[in-house]
């Protein structure tokens, strides 16, 4: 028979593990005060990217993992969030801290509206409909009629915000903390949703939409709301990306970005919150390091040819899916289960 499950409904508090983990994430940039390493700024930038991807995956996970709707179009919401933040900051002189939630609101509207046609579609059909978003939005952003705001093919350049004078932080340390605070706030919000009435309704729809309807859940409202909230979260990740990179360009938001989110989601763990952080780290580390692994293999085995980086990436994915079908978060849970059973025996 099945094992006892972690029940969202019975979680009154945030666990010690989670608090400890976030504290470690908050302490990492402080290494900058003791290290002389010239690569540290680069590591900080990677940390920012991981957090941003983790937020994007969180948005997608709310939709796919907890509500059972698929989206191949979340790169579009990421793009809309990035552009909204960039345009607000450059053309309307909106401060960065206000531009992030405003970008979220814009994306909520976009996602909520897209949620209505999505109501009629399920599974493969919804995948195709959202796919069109992913391919259409980058082209639309380049369109001449809005080039005055979007900068057309050239995109928008913006200034990285300066840390406030009272904080002795470098720009990259500061931006890391901006990403971390937004991530913590959004993870907290999603965590609250999931352990409450709204989250139960979302998961009920995922597990049995018709029964959820007869329980009094307005399935149409909840599905569109979830689409909106999901788009808002991923859009705020886009806004953070615009701020940390200080540049938005239409071609950075291709279908491949959507697929990266999906890969991060599946590798991290579907319907797992820690999985979103793992997924965000995976996207940055593994995509970046496939090339390094390729170079290392060429050296180490004295190969005459390059090993294609994407083939390494693909092999890694295959192995992960084969050995950890529930994602890395699922694997960690399984190992913890084994460990606690072993300690119970002794």
């Amino acid at each position, binding site marked *: *028979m*099945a*094992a*006892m*499950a972690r*029940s*969202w*409904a*019975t979680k009154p508090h945030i666990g010690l593990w989670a608090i400890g983990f976030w504290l470690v994430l908050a302490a990492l940039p402080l290494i900058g005060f003791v290290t002389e390493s010239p690569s540290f700024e680069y590591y900080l930038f990677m940390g920012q990217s991981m957090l941003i991807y983790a937020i994007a995956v969180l948005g997608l996970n709310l939709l796919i993992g907890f509500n059972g709707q698929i989206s191949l179009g979340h790169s579009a919401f990421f793009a809309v969030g990035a552009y909204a933040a960039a345009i607000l900051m450059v053309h309307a002189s909106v401060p960065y801290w206000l531009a992030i939630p405003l970008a979220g609101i814009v994306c909520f509207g976009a996602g909520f509206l897209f949620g209505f046609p999505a109501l009629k579609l399920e599974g493969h059909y919804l995948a195709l409909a959202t796919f069109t978003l992913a391919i259409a939005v980058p082209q639309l952003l380049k369109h001449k009629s809005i080039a005055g705001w979007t900068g057309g093919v050239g995109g928008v350049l913006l200034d990285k915000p300066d840390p406030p004078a009272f904080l002795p932080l470098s720009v990259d340390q500061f931006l890391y903390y901006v990403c971390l605070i937004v991530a913590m706030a959004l993870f907290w*919000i999603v965590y*609250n*949703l999931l*352990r*409450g*009435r*709204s*989250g*139960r*309704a979302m*998961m*009920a729809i*995922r*597990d*049995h939409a*018709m*029964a*959820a*309807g*007869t*329980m*009094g*859940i*307005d*399935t149409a409202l909840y599905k569109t*709301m979830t689409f909106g*909230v999901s788009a808002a979260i991923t859009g705020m990740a886009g806004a953070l990306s615009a701020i940390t990179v200080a540049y938005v360009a239409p071609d950075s938001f291709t279908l491949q970005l959507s697929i990266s989110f999906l890969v991060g989601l599946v590798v991290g763990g579907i*319907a797992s919150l820690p999985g979103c952080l793992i997924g965000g780290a995976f996207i940055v580390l593994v995509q970046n390091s496939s090339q390094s692994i390729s170079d290392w293999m060429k050296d180490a085995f004295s190969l005459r040819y390059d090993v294609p980086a994407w083939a390494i990436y693909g092999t890694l994915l295959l192995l992960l899916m084969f050995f950890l079908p529930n994602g890395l978060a699922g694997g960690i849970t399984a190992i913890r289960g084994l460990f606690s059973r072993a300690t119970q025996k002794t």
Partner: protein
Amino acid sequence: MDKEATPLLSVRGVSVRFGGVVALDDVSFDVAPGQIAGLIGPNGAGKTTLFNCLSRLYQPSEGEILFEGTSVLATPRHRIPDIGIGRTFQNVALFDKLTVLENVMVGRHSRTGSSFLANALRLPSVVREQNAARDRAMELIEFMDLVPFTHWPAGGLPFPIRKRVELARALAAQPKLLLLDEPAAGLNHEEVGTLEAQIRRVRDVQGVTVLLVEHHMSLVMSVSDKVITVNFGRKIAEGTPDEVKRHPEVIRAYLGTAD
């Protein structure tokens, strides 16, 4: 007006057609408050079709369904639990990845009202509502003898347990009328005995009126105050279990004609 005379549920001339097939043909009957009513009939007689009209999964082509005087057919599907109608499904429709407790708590959805935003911010009112919903769910889990399974995912549980979870979930909405679609299907003799006691307790302790579709004749006949028989989409008999058992049309429908 005499309370007994006012039916809780009144089905009036309901017909359902799927293309050219007539699934229900001008069916009328009443269920009084506090009654346990049985709806019987051979396979394909239209019993589940009628249930699906009551929970607004199907739209009848003709007729009216009144619940405490309000039109069920004018109520959207997700408002049906609000007006006091709950149901279970023939094949058990649980939320498999959620635990038993969470399943029953989803049943409280229509009796709670916290918004998306209030939930996102976990306002104190949300916490209070959540605790109350959990307490009520735990009472029902005890009522249905499900305590050992409280934190198990519903998907992995044996069929008879799943049926009890579904009943607890339906009761969580505090229905005035509970529709049970073949509650005895897939249960063994002993489990049917338990079920019968549970149906009686639902009526006597929770004060819920029950309308059940069932093939298990001895259960229907012993638990029901009133039995309605349908065949080929038409009502052929209505009355006390003894009356219905002796009704020539019912005997013909179940045993075939003598000649």
